[in-house]
């Protein structure tokens, strides 16, 4: 299991389009994926779950990966967050 703390850097925050992309990305991997924000623990392969996260610019989220391909999944996910969901 790996945990990684990350910041939302795009202006619009974690809105619907990135939420959908995060789920699509996570679904490619075998490992479990969770997001934790302010104590709210969300399954990252559930779009309706990810959509309940109100995460504006500057907020911090903990990404949790657990499974055989967790390293690869982490790398791609962190990359996507760091690109500001391709909205920079």
């Amino acid at each position, binding site marked *: 299991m790996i945990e990684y703390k990350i910041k939302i850097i795009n202006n619009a925050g974690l*809105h*619907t*389009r990135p*939420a*959908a992309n995060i*789920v*699509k990305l996570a679904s490619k991997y075998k490992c479990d994926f969770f997001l934790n924000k302010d104590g709210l623990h969300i*399954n990252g*392969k*559930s*779009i*309706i*779950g990810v*959509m*309940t996260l*109100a995460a*504006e610019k500057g907020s911090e989220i903990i990404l949790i990966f657990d499974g055989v391909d967790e390293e690869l999944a982490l790398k791609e996910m962190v990359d996507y967050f760091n690109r500001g969901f391709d909205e920079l």
Partner: protein
Amino acid sequence: MSYNMKSENENILKGIGAAPGIGISKAFIYKKEKEEITNESITDLEDAIVSLDTALEKSKKELRKIFSLAVDKLGEKRAAIFDAQIMILDDPILISTIKNRIKKEMRVPEYIVNDEISKYTDLMNLSHEPYMKERSHDIEDIKNRIIRNLKKKKWKSRITSDVVVVTTTVSPSDTVLFSRVNVKGYVTDFGGLTSHAAIVARSLNIPAVVGLHDASNYIKEGDLLIIDGYKGEVIINPDEKQLNDYQKKIVRLQKQGTELNKLRDLPAVTLDGKEIQLLANLELTDEIELISESGAKGIGLVRTEQLFEEYEAFPDEEEQYQVYKTIAERIYPETVTIRTFDIGGDKVLPVDLKEPNPFLGWRGIRLLLDNTHLFKTQIRAVLRASSHKNIKLMLPMIASMIEIRKSKEIISECKNELKKEGKIFDKHMGIGIMIEIPSAAVLIRDFAEEVDFVSIGTNDLIQYLLAVDRGNEIVSSIYQEFHPAVVRTLHHIITEGKKSGKLVSMCGEMAADPFAVPLLIGLGLESISVSASAIPLIKKIIRNLTLKELQSLAAECLAFKTEKEINTRMHRFSNEKEKHQIKNLY
């Protein structure tokens, strides 16, 4: 017209007669909004899971249709919400939780769906971010969509006996859906005379009374109703005398119907020898039987958007080709005029694309020219079905010359493609336009010269000319077909259109009004297209008049300055003639 809820008889509600006919049956209250969700338990788990899966699949198909249109029009980014909604229907966590709960709790799927999804919306509503509230509405929307699809299935099986459907408002797709079961009539709170649902009811020969304000609260499930689509009245739990009177009326009407049917094979010709082309409108494939029996000289209007209303997605070229080919073959050697999709306004398919003014928005030819793929698919299908040379193509909502020219370019493109593919089609297939926007009426001469024929769509023309929403019962009384501006505009269209040597036809509701037909023919109209059920009566009227008297009648009406004068004159004319059956009914 009176909108009083109660008349001298306590149990009579007065509204607007939107589709003629009389029906006597028990009331079935159809509540569309706020589906009641009960905590019922189930016994058949497998059945519950199947109905959940079916509802999810149905919702997905609906959303995919909306999504593809949204991508085209709004772009990928703004369409993302629909993409996310589709993903929710596939959400592995959500769906497996719902299924597990159904298994464990043995409750109806709609209860579990509502309860489970509400957990998420409740969470979103706790947030202080305004966009989270909006997001919660989106989730709410998808929840309601699933529940509606779960309910619809249940609801269908609930109607087993004859009923009169009582509801707040009825959509065209509801009307089509209801027609599959034993519906004897429609009673609605909202809606005016020419709402599209009323047109469908008329073409299916199902009586309808609309604009009753709060009938759906007033009438109780299982009440015996008499619905009188001629008078626009609904009688709740009639007494013996009322019931007797109406049963007699039904018998009398049936007799009259048989009498009118005798006219079937006679031409629609005036006493002084002027023949009028009487065509039928078609919006359901089932109607073709009715049309052949009515004695129509062909089909003057196929509302293709209605034809495919029940389809989950836009039909592909092959599906459309098969339908058009069947219609063309069945009506041969007569001709059929196929109108391209007129979606938008109240007939819109993607109901979730909200426009502030849909009637002034993205509809008809505007939508087609923005979606060339959709447009070309339809044109190719129509062309391929035209090999017997008995198809004409008509374009809706034309406002400018550029729209005609662009459409013609696209049609030529399709022809070239088909030629290269070695497909057979009618190279000279007639192309026409609807005249239903005031700008097209003004420019009729130029437009007519650019095409092979024109057809006046009175419903929209009147609505746009008088700036009256025909579906709004508050103002529907000032939607007047005998308004002097309407009569003079029609005169302008007919005379100027004929100068270009092109056929001028009419396919709106006005053409089916027995009081208006004498005026229309007097104004010079030579071709009208109405619902098949109206053809015998219209023919009977035409056969009892002379063109000469109609021409002077029209001249008289063109000089009037108020709607009242024209209306009174036309009713007086018809009454004096005593030639049509309407008055004899009562």
